[in-house]
């Protein structure tokens, strides 16, 4: 090869082979390029729609937006639970993000103590990648904007605006309405409404207790979606408001409660423990259902610290407990109304007189009364709440008839007021003894006198006692309590749509009149006058033993240690002539019924009555004006217009 002397024949032959084969090479290249073109045509012209879809699903994510939770309002539209804007700070694990350094940086913007920082780091370590962990809620605008400016340099950190539940009347409605709280792992279910992925949204809150829990699904609404453009790492690049799906707000729930009455109940209870229930005795609407002492539901929304929760849970007066529904107490002397009615229904002569000498010996033991009432008939027995009278009255009727009457008045019954937590309590009878005490299945005669004064086995909750008062006040209908007026505009059935009370009107009226006597000359004589003219209140006191006096602990009235004192009851209705409102008030360990419960009942009842425009019209009669000489001399003078009417007149006159 040192001398490549190339001869033409040789050259031409090699050249010919080369030319032919190079032509082939060109042909192959051409075919290859055509194949690529064909593939392109297939992908880009025929399958393009398929890949467009894939591309769009790469490019866009739908981020769930929690719907605004439905409002809860009272009968007059006063907002009891609503939502307010909430600036939240979240952090999520992400590529190239150092959790410890990020949390340290965040601590420069918002107060984060060391324990909170450690907890955050732990939460972050446990959270899946890119799922945000809440650092702080309720940032100020300054904190929010400062973080937002720095957010681009802080990977994984976002500050956004969510909504948080707010209860304007913090404590007054805490037990009825409940509260919302963070979703627990145990709330999540594989199927059903709690399988909804919205529950995993860090801003989502689930209803706990009361209306919030019972109507959680109604209040929740339907989540919307925000169309977000994301890059391959899942980072948001931009939003597309036109592609958003609007969230459907939760339904508004109108309660039958009245915020003013409820708030007054909370005021008058102060530190006392107990419950107050007010019902409209024409239709069964619950106007007030308060349990005290209460707690601020707003604190639960944010999440209590362990110490805060322990303080509430361990407090002797049990603020977390809804005493209107969940606690049962011996009804004490309020039960005497039932005994009296049972007696009358069974032919008992109301003129029957028993003499009270403070002590009555029967069955080989002494039975006590508060004082020596002397000779009393049935009305007197009720008015002065004479135990000795009712020991004997009850013995005349017998436990089964008393129990039957009591149950007709809703005692021992669980009502469908749609919120959870009711305890049925107990109205005992002979069948109960047979059922529950196999070793001693006999109703001993000595148990009847105790039942006659609302002690012994009898345990009832304040709602039941209020229903009893409302049915007595109504006198005709077996009213049912109603708490939910409407859900999303759908009105719930009225509590008056039930049967009549199977008692003679005469007998019910007798008991009602006796209750009027209680507040005119009886145990609660001071409280009949509401300061509202002829609109007066009738009622019945009750003093229920919390501990037997014989144990050495139980103390009468307000002497001694709080937890050993008697429970103070009062049931009432007003106005006495045409009853509209009935209530029950229980003050735990409040002593005599007339000491603690009755004065509070008076205050609560006053608000209920004054909120009623018809009652107000009755109370606010225009002042008689005969003193003015010119009106006497001028017979044509008209009544002075009410301020509202005067304003209308003034507005109509051109000036």
């Amino acid at each position, binding site marked *: *090869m*040192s*001398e*490549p002397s*190339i001869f033409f024949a*040789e*050259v031409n*032959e*090699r*050249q010919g*082979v*080369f*030319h032919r*084969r*190079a032509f082939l*090479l*060109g042909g192959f*290249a*051409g075919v*290859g*390029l055509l*194949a*690529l*073109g064909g*593939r*392109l*045509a297939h*992908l*880009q*012209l025929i*399958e*393009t729609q*398929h*890949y*467009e879809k*894939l*591309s*769009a699903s*790469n*490019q866009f994510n739908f981020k769930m937006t929690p719907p605004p939770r439905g409002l809860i309002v009272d009968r007059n539209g006063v907002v009891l639970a609503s939502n307010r804007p909430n600036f939240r700070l979240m952090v999520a694990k992400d590529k190239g993000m150092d959790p410890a350094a990020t949390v340290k940086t965040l601590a420069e913007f918002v107060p984060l103590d060391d324990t909170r920082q450690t907890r955050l780091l732990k939460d972050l370590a446990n959270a899946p990648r890119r799922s945000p962990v809440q650092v702080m809620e309720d940032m100020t605008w300054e904190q929010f904007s400062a973080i937002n400016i720095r957010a681009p340099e802080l990977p994984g950190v976002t500050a956004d605006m969510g909504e948080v539940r707010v209860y304007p009347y913090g404590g007054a409605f805490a037990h009825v309405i409940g509260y919302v709280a963070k979703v627990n792992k145990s709330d999540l279910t594989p199927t059903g409404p709690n399988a909804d992925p919205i529950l995993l949204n860090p801003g989502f809150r689930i209803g706990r207790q009361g209306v919030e829990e019972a109507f959680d699904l109604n209040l929740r609404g339907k989540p919307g979606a925000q169309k977000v*453009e*994301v*890059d*391959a*790492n899942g980072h948001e*690049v931009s939003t597309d408001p036109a592609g958003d799906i609007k969230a459907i707000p939760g339904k508004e729930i109108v309660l039958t409660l009245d915020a003013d009455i409820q708030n007054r109940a909370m005021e008058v209870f102060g530190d006392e423990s107990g419950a107050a229930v007010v019902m409209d005795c024409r239709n069964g609407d619950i106007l007030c259902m308060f349990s005290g002492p209460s707690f601020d539901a707003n604190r639960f929304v944010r999440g209590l610290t362990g110490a805060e929760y322990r303080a509430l849970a361990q407090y002797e007066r049990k603020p977390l407990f809804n005493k209107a529904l969940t606690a049962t107490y011996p009804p004490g002397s309020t039960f005497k109304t039932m005994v009296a009615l049972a007696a009358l229904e069974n032919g008992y002569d109301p003129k029957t007189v028993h003499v009270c000498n403070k002590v009555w010996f029967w069955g080989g033991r002494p039975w006590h009364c508060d004082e020596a009432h002397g000779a009393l008939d049935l009305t007197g027995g009720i008015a002065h709440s004479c135990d000795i009278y009712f020991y004997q009255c009850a013995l005349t009727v017998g436990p089964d008839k008393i129990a039957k009457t009591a149950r007709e008045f809703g005692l021992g019954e669980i009502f469908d007021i749609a919120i959870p937590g009711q305890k049925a309590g107990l109205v005992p009878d002979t069948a109960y003894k047979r059922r529950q005490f196999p070793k001693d299945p006999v109703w001993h005669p000595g148990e009847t006198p105790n039942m006659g004064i609302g002690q012994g086995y009898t345990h009832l909750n304040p709602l039941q006692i209020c229903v009893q008062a409302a049915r007595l006040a109504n006198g005709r209908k077996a009213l049912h309590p109603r708490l939910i007026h409407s859900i999303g505009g759908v009105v719930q059935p009225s509590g008056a749509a039930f049967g009549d009370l199977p008692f003679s009107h005469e007998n019910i009226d007798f008991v009602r009149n006796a209750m009027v006597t209680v507040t005119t000359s009886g145990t609660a004589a001071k409280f009949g006058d509401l300061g509202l003219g002829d609109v007066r209140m009738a009622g019945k006191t009750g003093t229920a033993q919390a501990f037997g006096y014989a144990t050495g602990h139980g103390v009468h009235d307000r002497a001694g240690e709080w937890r050993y004192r008697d429970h103070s009851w009062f049931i009432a209705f007003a106005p006495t002539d045409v009853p509209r409102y009935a209530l029950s008030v229980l003050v735990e360990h409040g002593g005599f019924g007339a000491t603690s419960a009755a004065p509070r009942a008076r205050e609560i009842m006053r608000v209920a009555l004054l909120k009623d425009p018809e009652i107000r019209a009755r109370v606010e009669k225009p002042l008689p004006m005969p003193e003015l000489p010119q009106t006497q001399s001028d017979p044509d003078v008209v009544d002075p217009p009410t301020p509202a009417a005067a304003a209308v007149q003034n507005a109509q006159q051109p000036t």
Partner: protein
Amino acid sequence: MTVSALTRPGERDRLINKIGEIDWLFCLTITLIAGAGAVMLFSIAGSSWTPWAAAHLARYALFFAIMIVLSLIDIRVWFALAYPVYGIGFLLLIAVMFVGHHALGAQRWLQAGPITIQPSEIMKIGLVLALARFYHGLSGKSAQLSWWLLIPALMILAPVALVAKQPDLGTAILMLATGAIVVVLAGLSWRLIAAGLLAVAVLVPPVVLFGLHGYQKQRLTTFFHPEDDPSGSGYHILQSKIALGSGGLLGKGYGLGSQSQLNFLPEKQTDFIFATLAEEFGFVGCVSILILYAAVIFMALRTSYLSHSHFGRLAAAGVTATFAFYVLINGSMVMGLAPVVGVPMPLLSYGGTVMLTVMVGFGLVMAVRVHRYSEVTSGKGSLL
């Protein structure tokens, strides 16, 4: 300037005549492709000249100048340098095994001061030159079937083995294919060609099974079953196909390719730049680019026809084959027709090494064209 002028030794060596003989239409075509690359790189960077578009253009300008200078170098000089270039390339390939720079699990680069050298790229040109020179001196009969053919076989397989060892499977295959093409063009007997194809068909499966590195095997299995691993290796192919398919007829519009702009497309500025182009300019844009590539291949191949020397013919055709392989392998890979084998789209993709190789190759092709009437004998001829 007439053809006859070139045939006169005195005139054809004049610089001005040489410059006139450069195929300026060819230059325009490759410049259009490189320009399209810059346009895409500008878009991918979010309408920014940095970090890619400006560097791409600057590099192209420099390499274009190099190509022009190389095209003026006498074909006899190329002939004389053929074995030395091959030899240096081979030595560097051996050197890279011992002192090479590790990157991404492969040992491909030599660091010489500020310059990074990838010996396999030198070898791409060196192999073509050496084979062309060898066959230049071999009779057509010997080229068909003779013991002499063991020499080109060794010339091809030795560097291919070294490159495959690095491991750089893409380049190894490219070099093997280019070498084979030159051997075939030189006149290998059809019987041997058939035997060679048969050997490939028999040998490939065991090589794939036992001879490949884990990631190479992974790429192959992923190619055949991309749906098995949509977020791993299959991801590249899938995202590339999504980019292509969603481009449709006219594309999503310049700068609006969501697949590339939002980083769903991997290696979007290098190996998968064609997918970016396809997404933003659609079928029309893709076919336009493919037509430009076809034109380049056609013009380069035509140059090999024009050459009066066997060396020139084989060298130009070898370079053309390399270029065509680049285009076809990258195109198939991007379109999901071939496994992912790290071969860029020449001139379009960002990256200096391959562009330099291609432009040096084109310099050789142009030199063949400019000196197509030169007698090629060893040891004669001046540099320019």
